[in-house]
């Protein structure tokens, strides 16, 4: 077992990516994810890889496209406004069936917004990462350990399914330090990059005059051919949905209130749930998706069947709640949505209050649904 180390989430992610075989990092500074670029600048050359501070987010993401086309593990990272700029390349990467890692350490929007933690890019990550019909894998870490673990997982899944993977974190996860076990260093060496046997059969590595040329392309002018390629991709997505949904549940088997949230918010609510479960009267459980796409819809529905009420706290205005409601639409259970925005993060006391408040509402009216903007109930 490797030694337990203390690292910032951003740095743990970067180190884990290198250990996962990432050999190209292209980035552009933006708070609160710049530690990833700084770490890569220092450590990527030692790993025999390449670091480029690009002229823009647009260019950085397109450099990833180029490196990924050669079968190399490549990544970029940014925060919300920068991710919008990367959406062009993301669409091309998905359309070219290329694996790549994109990290979004979310800050508050819209526009330039603020730099404090947010989850306001949920729709963008899971619904509209770029133009056209496509999906990307979306992994949502909730600890520094998962920042590292998911960097490895993201590359594994991206290469397995030949599609881009996004790690959707937020400023809290990027900036905080926690102890973690780093993933083992792989046996791969930089020399493996030129090892023909190790190269995927789709990678552009030069024909060496031994095979016919390969084309990586997203232009398909024939509508029938384009439709066929989209159908093929979505058939693959169905497999991904069936096989790759990941989630965690903590709490009693049949909680009164099922709290559904992801990322750093789940940490705050975990504390509130622990506190409330030590008291008498209300039993709460925490369902935390680790993958946002594919969304663990069936698993959530199974868990929600035994609860009385669902509470969805998020650092956005109901974006994540959409998926919770879709997943539990057939039950149905009353849903309370607790929004924070602008970089405001609930305190454990606020979480506890919300939990008790929504339960009090249920005791009065078992059908009532609530929406909270901060402390204000609409």
């Amino acid at each position, binding site marked *: 077992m490797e030694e337990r180390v203390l690292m910032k989430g951003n740095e743990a992610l970067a180190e884990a990516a290198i250990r996962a075989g990432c*050999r*190209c990092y*292209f980035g552009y500074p933006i708070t609160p994810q710049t530690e990833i670029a700084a770490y890569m600048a220092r450590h990527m050359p030692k790993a025999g890889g*390449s670091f*480029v501070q*690009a*002229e*823009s987010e*647009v*260019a*950085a993401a*397109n*450099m*990833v*496209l*180029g*490196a*990924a*086309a*050669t079968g*190399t593990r*490549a990544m970029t990272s940014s925060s919300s406004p920068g991710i919008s700029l990367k959406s*062009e*390349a993301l669409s*091309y990467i998905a359309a*070219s069936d290329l694996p790549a890692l994109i990290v979004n350490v979310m800050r508050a929007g819209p526009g330039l917004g603020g730099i404090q933690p947010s989850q306001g890019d949920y729709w963008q990550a899971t619904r509209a990462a770029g133009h056209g019909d496509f999906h990307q894998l979306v992994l949502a870490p909730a600890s520094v350990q998962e920042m590292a673990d998911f960097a490895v997982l993201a590359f594994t899944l991206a290469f397995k399914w030949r599609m881009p993977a996004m790690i959707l974190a937020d400023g809290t996860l990027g900036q905080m330090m926690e102890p973690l076990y780093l993933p083992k260093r792989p046996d791969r060496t930089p020399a493996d*990059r*030129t090892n023909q046997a190790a190269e995927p059969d789709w990678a*552009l*590595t*030069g*024909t*060496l*005059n*031994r095979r*016919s*040329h*390969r*084309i*990586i*392309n*997203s*232009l398909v002018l024939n509508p029938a051919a384009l439709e066929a390629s989209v159908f093929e991709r979505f058939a693959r997505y169905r497999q991904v949905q069936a096989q790759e949904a990941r989630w965690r549940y903590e709490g009693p088997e049949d909680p009164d209130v099922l709290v559904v949230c992801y990322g750093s918010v789940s940490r705050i609510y975990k504390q509130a749930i622990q506190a409330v479960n030590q008291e008498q009267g209300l039993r709460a459980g925490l369902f935390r998706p680790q993958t946002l796409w594919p969304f663990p819809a069936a698993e959530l529905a199974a868990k929600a069947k035994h609860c009385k009420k669902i509470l969805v706290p998020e650092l956005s205005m109901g974006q994540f709640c959409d998926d919770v409601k879709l997943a539990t639409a057939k039950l149905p259970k009353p849903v309370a949505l607790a929004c924070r925005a602008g970089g405001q993060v609930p305190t454990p006391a606020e979480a506890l209050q919300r939990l008790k408040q929504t339960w009090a509402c249920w005791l009065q009216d078992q059908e009532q649904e609530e929406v909270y903007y901060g402390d204000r109930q609409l």
Partner: protein
Amino acid sequence: MATVSYERPEALLDVPFHYCPGCTHGITHRLIAECLDELQMTGQTIAVASVGCSVMAYDYFACDVVQAPHGRAPAVATGIRRARPDRFVFTYQGDGDLAAIGTAEIIHAATRGENITVFFINNAIYGMTGGQMAPTTLEGQVTQTTPWGRNPAEAGNPIKVCELLATLDGPAFIARVAVDHANQIHQVKATIKKALQCQLEERGFALVELLSTCPTNWKMSATEAMRWVHEQMRQQYPVGVFVDRLREDQNSGRGGSAGGRHLSGPSAPEAVGLTALPAGYTHKE
């Protein structure tokens, strides 16, 4: 006994070009392919096709090809070259792609001195979308989006890419040639070859601007288009060599590019001497 003197280069596939009659893409593709053959680079080369008429270059070149988003070819090429420093990369970009939407990418690839070769097709118009103003459209030139001719007061001035990039320290080789007459072919080919040699020798960024035709959107015959390049475009975009570090290094004994890595490619032949292009050029019908 008959000898074969004109064959399809191996770096080109046996596929008919989709380009319009009189368009110079075909000539330029062929010249690049001949140079790839002669330098034995094809097997180690990954090309980057851009957005524009030449987007389907991936169907024609025998090397591996990736197609880049509009303007991003230099960034995609950077990614490839950084991932595979043991391979060669060239981009093939039009004027809208390189000098409008991709301005940032080309300037920064150049200033980083990326070991890539850029073929920049300047035909003063957006061809694939049907003839709109390009950043290189000449003053007074009529296009779909400058129906009364390009008026600099409203539509800005033509961009001189070679002159712009020549102000940077990064590039190793920058030259402009004109594909406007058969008597230019040797000059054009020698320039293309030298730009590829830059990469073979790890000298860094090389760009060749090729003044090219678009008879369809210029609404001219092939001959008229050639003449227009010669008489109009050359006025705005003088041909010549703007940066040649190979030559400087030969004179000073210096060599190598910043951040260059050793390649396993074939050894480079002698660099072709190329300075200013002949001034006494006459156009013949």
